[in-house]
């Protein structure tokens, strides 16, 4: 077992426009990327429960050439609106760090 934060080079979050939240997981080497991809642990159900978003609104892309996983879902509150806590959306990555990968 390993934590995602030990396997990935970068784990980051950022807006894609003011209405959408994205998360990127980038790997230095193919072995770690494939281990995480094949573990099945990055799925819409896990993201839904970590972030409190509807499962059907979670998009996940596996980019083999870039050794990267992309996750996207709608922000609960758009950037800068009432109730917003993170205008750039750059500090929403923490729940991913301790995902356990076999």
């Amino acid at each position, binding site marked *: 077992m390993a934590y995602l934060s030990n396997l990935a080079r970068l784990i980051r979050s950022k807006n894609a426009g003011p209405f959408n939240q994205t998360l990127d997981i*980038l790997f230095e080497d193919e072995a770690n990327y494939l281990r995480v991809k094949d573990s099945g642990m990055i799925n819409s159900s896990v993201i839904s429960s970590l972030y409190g978003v509807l499962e059907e609104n979670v998009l996940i892309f596996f980019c083999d050439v*870039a050794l*990267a996983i992309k996750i996207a879902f709608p922000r609960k509150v758009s950037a800068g609106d009432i109730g917003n806590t993170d205008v750039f959306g750059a*500090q929403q990555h923490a729940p991913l760090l301790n995902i356990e990968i076999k």
Partner: protein
Amino acid sequence: MVTMYAATGILGYGFPKESLETSLSKNPSFLGCDCGSCDPGPNYMGMGKAICSRQATKRDAALLVKAALSKNIPLIFGSAGGSGSDEGVNWLFEIVSGILEEECLHAKVALIYAEQNAEYVLSKLKEGKISSLDWNPELDERTIINARHITCAMGPEPIQKMIKEGAQIIICGRATDTSVYAAVPLLLGCQPGPVWHAAKIIECGAACSFPKTHDSMMAHIDGDSFILDPPNPQKKVKRVNAAAHTLYENVNPFQITEPDGIIDVSECTYEQIDERRVIVKGSKFIPKPYSVKLEAVESIGFRSICIGGTRDPGLIQILDAFLQKVKKTTQDRVLDILGLEQSVYSLSFLRYGIDGVMGKTGRSTLIPDEVGIVMDVIADSQETANTIIGIARSLLLHTDFEGRKCNAGNIAFPFSPTDIQAGEVFRFSMNHVIWLDDPLEPFRYEIKEC
């Protein structure tokens, strides 16, 4: 071969002048720089404020103006002034014409305005020409009427029109980040796949290279491929970073939508030619009916805030219930003093150390020794917001709680005055597109001899 040049990620972020000089020696067909971003939030569009200071913007613009005119190649600025509003275009034009005068230079400067009035957008809505994007609901009339500013993000066609009319410097209102860089290569007959893909990567300046600093980037388009080439000899582009770049700030990393088509990178290959440069092959551009993105902001009122912290373990243990009580008592007092119901203003708390950054989603289970509290009031007028925050602040400081020892005051304030007037605040209110028959239609054009 056609060479594209991007000065830096946003005009005003800066770039070494040596990078520009090196790039000029490789004969770029144009110089470009994106000037805008939604990232810092809606207030920049709402208040007509630029993201970078005038001085920083002028420094970057002056280098580019002199370089472009010396080489007789077009210089294109996109989304002027940060949001691409009409005010932003005029602001950048003032800076550019000042530079021309100071340097005793003359140029034909084109201005392309991208702001829309409500009537135009309403007419498009009635014609059924507006669709929503991503997870947003359909656009309604109320949102159009309430907008303070509305822009359409132009594609490359308006820029190409101005170049054909002899413009040497083109200052665009809101434009897609890529159109600034795609306009000239497409005009020169380059294949759209590599042009749009290269534009998507270099519009962030040198962000796909490292070491990571604000710097320029070039892309050389040759047939169906392109080469990423950082002009700064200290920088390298690695193939995996070039491949990862289309992930950045996009919902879908394989297909990126532009006004007249979709950039499809799903079958691209990325090869390291040498230590510093990457060649990209296989970029496709799939045409689609023409659409331009609508962006808009509406006012949500006026904000006042108060910042403070507590170090009392007893208070921190019961903080949720305590703040609920402060809120309820404030609401009662506001009704009494101002006659205002709680529905016409908002009062909320951010608790740093507990859930200030992620809200309920990332709530920590650990109880910290200290908590930072930001109290936020938004109301119809600045005066009302100031009055409400004053009432709330006094209650935050003095409200008693069970077992309280620190009855001289619950909160440590870092500043005097404790209450901070933050001005008018906005929200982004549109994430939609207009389907167009004519890519030039929504925009207004002026050419000035300077």
